[in-house]
């Protein structure tokens, strides 16, 4: 199967409290042929998994109300969620990024995501599936 075909079967969840960032990330994913949904905070991300949904990729913002990205990532991993979780944030301090990575991220990217960054993430997923 050509990589492009694999990509059209991928699913993603965008977790971000900012409407504009959600819109941009969803469009990026849609253009890449990835079926996607968006939620506004970490708790909603956890709940959607509790309802039985699963995704190949989760784009997780760090700073969110109710439940932030670090707490949500820890919770999802403790629930046994093995999806690729990519932290997407504007934080640039090493210690903050490390704390986020330690919560269970597979990767961290500075916000906002670009086409090139998303392609490299999707390539990793496709590679791990083949």
């Amino acid at each position, binding site marked *: 199967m050509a990589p492009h075909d694999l990509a059209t079967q991928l699913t993603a969840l965008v977790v971000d*409290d*900012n*409407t*504009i*960032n959600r*819109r*941009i990330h969803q*469009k*990026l994913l849609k*253009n890449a042929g990835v079926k996607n949904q968006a939620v506004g905070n970490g708790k909603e991300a956890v709940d959607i998994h509790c309802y039985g949904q699963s995704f190949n990729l989760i784009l997780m913002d760090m*700073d969110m109300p109710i439940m932030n990205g670090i707490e949500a990532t820890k919770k999802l991993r403790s629930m046994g969620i093995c999806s690729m979780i990519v932290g997407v944030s*504007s934080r640039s301090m090493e210690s903050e990024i490390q704390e986020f990575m330690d919560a269970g991220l597979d990767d961290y990217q500075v*916000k*906002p995501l*670009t*086409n090139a960054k998303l392609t490299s993430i999707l390539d990793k997923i496709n590679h791990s599936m083949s």
Partner: protein
Amino acid sequence: MEVGQMQRQWVDYTKSLFMEGLLNGQQFLQLQQLQDENNPEFVFEVVSLFFEDSERLLKDLTFALDQKGGVDFQKVDALAHQFKGSSSSVGALRVSNCCLALRNFCLEQNTDACLRCLQQLKQEYCLVKNKLETLFRLEQQIMAAGGSIPMMELSF
């Protein structure tokens, strides 16, 4: 004015916004690249969302900093963080830098500095809003004349 001329005007105007530091060229062009036949107005939609969001945030910031009984700096900081996020995402560079400054003044709990910063933030927002609205008007004129928006590259 014929289409070619209008398109050149659009390119020059867009470049000037990058040169003046009003827009982050890379970020704005990334947005443009997301536009396609299925979503020909994607940039316009995202920027319109940004305008709505910004107006609400500026109102809330003004209210939060006007509290005579004491300013809740955590609240102001949270609003500035939101504003910084959305302005960065659309490439509104000067607005996002102002938000960063505002967050720093919140850390210092300096009400006067926050108020001065908010004033500047409002000015920068108005400026970029006017410029973007002009840009969209140019785009509408090009499309009404049967032309298309040029694809720009950051090679200048």
